[in-house]
């Protein structure tokens, strides 16, 4: 005959299985912190080294003459930051999944990515169109908005904190669409500062 503590363990097991099988829990706070640092470094380089800080949607100073070199530099920088941030996230998630005795690429990881994919890819293609149409001032705001949308739609399948993270990015993106001159600052805030705060929060809440 089972005892009370067995029943309590049954319920604990049921809860844990429900959560493990429906949510991707191998996200690490460290990935957020490091991604934030890359983004801050990137925003600084774009501003101080490449002199990229569009004030209008069609920025004449960037679009004239030196367009290609500044723009190519900034786009390459963006791609490097994205690859670094993704690589770091995969590395830390891989470690965390291993610690939990799970595979990284499992049913919950697939579902998370599937739900991020549509806003993420839409945003990526839209950014390419903006570059092609020389609407340079909209690049930073729109990366924030679409990244925020991707996080928001992924949040049902991982920590609920990701939802707030997504909404914050969307808000920053909308503000900087209106105030184009603050585009780079909002970008640094969203991808840099907000990521770092979120990473520290997740780290203290779940990993310490």
């Amino acid at each position, binding site marked *: 005959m089972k005892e009370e503590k067995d029943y309590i363990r049954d319920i604990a097991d049921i809860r844990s299985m429900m959560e493990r099988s*429906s949510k991707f829990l191998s996200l690490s706070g460290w990935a957020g912190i490091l991604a934030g640092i890359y983004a801050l470094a990137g925003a600084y380089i774009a501003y101080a080294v490449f002199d990229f800080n569009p004030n209008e949607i069609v920025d004449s100073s960037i679009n004239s003459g030196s367009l290609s070199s500044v723009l190519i530099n900034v786009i390459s920088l963006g791609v490097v930051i994205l690859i670094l941030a993704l690589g770091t996230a995969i590395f830390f998630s891989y470690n965390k999944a291993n610690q939990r005795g799970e595979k990284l690429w499992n*049913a919950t990881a697939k579902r998370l990515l599937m739900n991020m994919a549509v806003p993420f890819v839409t945003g990526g293609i839209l950014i390419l169109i903006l570059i092609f149409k020389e609407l340079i001032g909209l690049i930073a705001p729109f990366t924030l908005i679409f990244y925020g949308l991707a996080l928001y739609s992924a949040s049902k399948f991982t920590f609920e904190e990701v939802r707030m993270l997504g909404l914050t990015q969307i808000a920053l993106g909308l503000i900087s669409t209106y105030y184009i001159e603050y585009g780079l600052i909002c970008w640094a805030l969203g991808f840099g500062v907000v990521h770092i705060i979120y990473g520290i929060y997740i780290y203290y809440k779940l990993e310490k």
Partner: protein
Amino acid sequence: MKISINGLHKAFESRIRLGIMSALAVNEMFDFNSLKEFLDVTDGNLASHLKALEKEEFIGVKKSFVGRKPNTQYYMSKEGKKAFDEHLKALEKLIKGVG
């Protein structure tokens, strides 16, 4: 359907069967390999527990092909959902009752 005096389903006495039902309660469908991974059991062991639940008509099976590979998906049936909910209620009652 066998229910013991305290309202607990005999079918859910096994930890693995309880695990299968928990996973299917929050997921529309689950394939064999994913279940195996989450429960950390062998093929044979999982298959026999799935068979038992299938026999009780607590879960349903949907067979299809992904390319050339057979893909078996499991889902919770209406009866399964009802039984699982009752089992949960009974567990909660037992804990509250004693404590």
